[in-house]
């Protein structure tokens, strides 16, 4: 698919998500530009995480359209969106706890011939080569994120920060075009925050598109090319962090929210 580089990768138009009358997401429209890091900020309960879940398909939209790489994906289930390259992470740790760190990464690989009932029954001779290739790929990611020594440990025994890294590496195994990160630095030691920041910047340099929910404004300022502000289910502003700081309304949303 060769979309024009100036065309936004992910477009949401008038997206709603209602929970029994509660309008968690109330008509949100945003463009996520290609190859950039876009921040999504706002007070608690603004609907940021819900909106991210709707974009990824974890929650169905009540109304509105979501377009990814020029195609309407509003009705696609989560796993189809993931296979197209729109991959999310979670706010709470979501590791596969009884799988090793390496296995957590391998699960996400999209193209293993042994990852179907028939492939499995055909035996290791059928899928062994795929497995070897993917183990190499997973190990180079582990190396990049400094977790080589942990590959055979159960993911459930990792620290909060390491689980964050697993989550990001797992998403990268899918070779995504667009990452949706839900507070990737929350509850993480400052040293690992710096690491994650560094990795996100290097991913952007590789051309990956990222939309991230984040509370720490100084991180948003350092990382994000542009920022969308949500409050009470609506977008109340967007632009660079510096420009947003000058708008009283937006400062109020944070101070009051």
């Amino acid at each position, binding site marked *: 698919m060769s979309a024009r580089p100036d065309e936004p990768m992910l477009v949401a138009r008038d997206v709603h998500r209602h929970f029994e009358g509660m309008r968690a997401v109330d008509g949100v429209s945003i463009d996520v530009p290609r190859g950039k890091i876009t921040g999504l900020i706002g007070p608690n309960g603004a609907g940021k995480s819900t909106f991210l879940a709707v974009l990824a398909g974890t929650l169905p939209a009540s109304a509105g359209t979501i377009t990814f790489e020029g195609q309407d994906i509003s009705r696609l289930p989560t*796993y189809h969106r993931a296979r197209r390259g729109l*991959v999310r992470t979670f706010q709470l740790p979501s590791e*596969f706890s009884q799988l090793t760190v390496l296995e957590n990464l391998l699960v996400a690989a999209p193209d293993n011939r*042994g990852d179907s009932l028939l492939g499995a029954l055909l035996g290791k001779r059928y899928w062994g080569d795929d497995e070897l290739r993917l183990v190499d790929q997973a190990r180079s990611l582990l190396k990049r994120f400094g977790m080589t*020594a942990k590959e055979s440990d159960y993911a459930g025994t990792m620290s909060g920060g390491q689980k964050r890294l697993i989550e990001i590496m797992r998403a990268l195994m899918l070779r995504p075009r667009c990452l949706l990160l839900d507070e990737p630095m929350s509850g993480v030691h400052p040293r690992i925050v710096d690491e994650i920041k560094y990795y996100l910047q290097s991913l952007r340099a590789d051309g990956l598109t990222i939309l991230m929910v984040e509370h720490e404004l100084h991180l948003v300022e350092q990382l994000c090319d542009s920022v969308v502000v949500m409050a009470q289910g609506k977008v109340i502003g967007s632009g660079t962090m510096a420009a947003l700081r000058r708008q009283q309304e937006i400062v109020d949303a944070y101070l009051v929210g």
Partner: protein
Amino acid sequence: MNSYYAATLLVYAGVDIIACIALNLQFGISGIVNFSFIIFQAVGAYAAAVLSMPPDTANGGYQVYVGGFQLPFPLPWIGGALAGGLLAIPVGLVVLRKLRTDYQAIALLVLSVIANSVITNARPFLNGAAGIAQVPGPFSDQIDPLTQSYQLLYVGLTLPCVLLVWLVASRIVNSPYGRSLRAMRDHEVAASALGKNPVRMKMTIFIVGGIIGGLSGAILVGYIAVWAPSEWLYPETIILFAAVIVGGRANNVGAILGALLVPVGFEEVTRLIPGTIAGWVPPPNLIPAMQWVAIGLLIIGFLWFRPQGVRPEPRRVFEGSPDAEEVDRVRTA
């Protein structure tokens, strides 16, 4: 111990091992709490029975049932396995798509109770509470089932089925597909966000487990020659769960071990309890009742003190892993 007793033990062990491997695929590997497992064994047994028996008019009408096709071996066994798989389709479509895992378990338990009650009361279908008797086993028209050689033959027919089921299950469990199933078990929403289709995976394993469960029923009914609702009450499922929990969830060797320890071992050990204890004759239902108490205590005890079972789920270390050498060293030490 005579050879009949040995053959009986071996056939029962084979049937229980097959059932436990199937339940382990569903519960241990994929996280499907299939509290209706026994109805898949039951449908396999009924299907194999009516496929191998003559029409019900042939025996003076003392029992009534549908079908009666007199098919030769191995068609009744294949039919039993298919019946288990077919039953899994509608059940899975209703239960596995929308419900949360804990409600799935309840729905399946209720289904098991309803199915038993329907078959018990709808006599024209499968002879109701009395059940079906005189089910001919494989080759029983050629060899007298009461002979020692037939007993040996039956063990010989059961063994390849056990090996086949073992092969299928270990290929699934040790494959990338098995890894995806375990990932779904650990965190379904995350698996789905990584491109896995959980409903499809659960349906697939539900059907595979149904087929294997059906086969176990077909093997059993050919041997014991009778099949009635009292054989497949819902607590039978609990025994199999106890076996998988005791043996070790998500470990096929554990499932086999559990099958040998719980359904086979337990029932055999209680046979050794004397009919009278120092002149006191216990009430006739005391021993069976105590068996249930013991099964319950066994499950609780294991979940409390050793939740991973006798043989825990193996940690999968890949070749070239930084600590693979250390694991090898520990193993050889």
